[in-house]
């Protein structure tokens, strides 16, 4: 099927719905982000399950992260992550220089305050994907100039 546009539109609607549904008492961004993140989490779990059906077992954590940066990102966003960095202690930074959920919004600092809510779903997507591959993590995102953004994955070991 041809269409990413449909997903983009749906994503925008989901974001705007969640923003409105939360706004009664606590307009605090925390709740909006959490809700969007949870939505993404479920989707991420499902996607990874479908996606790795026929693939061999991953060697290690780094192998899993590479899979997220290449295959997973390509199927969801039609491009790979531009840069993957790690401190080899469980923190990974995934940088996307043209993140698709932001490209339609701005390329610069305009609307920067709205950027976080367009990233929360994707954070959840990554966390959900990782969790189904047996990795517990916390995923956050930051933007300094749109449409570039960085996702930080912190692996939780217990």
């Amino acid at each position, binding site marked *: 099927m041809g269409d990413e*546009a449909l997903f983009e539109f749906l994503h925008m609607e989901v974001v705007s719905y969640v923003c409105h549904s939360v706004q009664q008492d606590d307009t605090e961004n925390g709740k909006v982000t959490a809700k969007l993140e949870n939505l993404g989490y479920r989707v991420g779990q499902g996607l990874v399950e479908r996606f790795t059906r026929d693939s061999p077992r991953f060697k290690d954590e780094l192998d899993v992260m590479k899979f997220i940066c290449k295959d997973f990102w390509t199927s969801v966003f039609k491009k790979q992550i531009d840069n993957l960095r790690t401190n080899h202690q469980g923190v990974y930074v995934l940088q996307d220089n043209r993140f698709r959920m932001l490209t339609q919004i701005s390329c610069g600092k305009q609307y920067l305050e709205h950027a976080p809510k367009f990233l929360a779903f994707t954070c959840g997507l990554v966390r959900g994907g990782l969790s189904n591959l047996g990795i517990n993590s916390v995923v956050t995102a930051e933007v300094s100039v749109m449409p570039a953004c960085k996702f930080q994955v912190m692996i939780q070991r217990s």
Partner: protein
Amino acid sequence: MSRQANRATENKKISSELFSLTYGALVTQLCKDYENDEDVNKQLDKMGYNIGVRIIEDFLARSNIGRCNDFRETADVIAKTAFKIYLGVTPTVTNWSPAGDEFSLLLETNPLVDFVELPDNHSNLVYSSMLCGVLRGALEMVQMAVDVRFVQDSLKGDGSTEIRLKFLKRIEENIPAGEE
């Protein structure tokens, strides 16, 4: 190795699965947020409408289709071009009313419901009602007021999924003040 080999073919499918999974997550969330199914249907329809009024521009820009002369032509464009582009399926156009102002879109497969099973306590939920909103919104932007609803739903045990479209009226174009 097999991971690489599967990539190309899987890729296309995944993108539609991304959509249906996201849609599913949204419906789940709405069912949590609202107490009754009617409200969920309404909200889905509303969101669909918002998508429709925007997606029409994307559609016209990429399909190169001009204005339709009658409702039959509209039906054809919706089924053969629009559904094909966005959902990858081609519904059948049937059940024309004698006056030619009403028809049905028969969907053998509904991509939105790929991994869905309706629990018994949601019998009034019209799972794919977003589609109605999308159609209504998109057609409104090309000056057609249309009533869209589901009359059959494979999720509820019907043989196929049927969306009924009824032409209500032509929306007059508003001429900006001060112009002829």
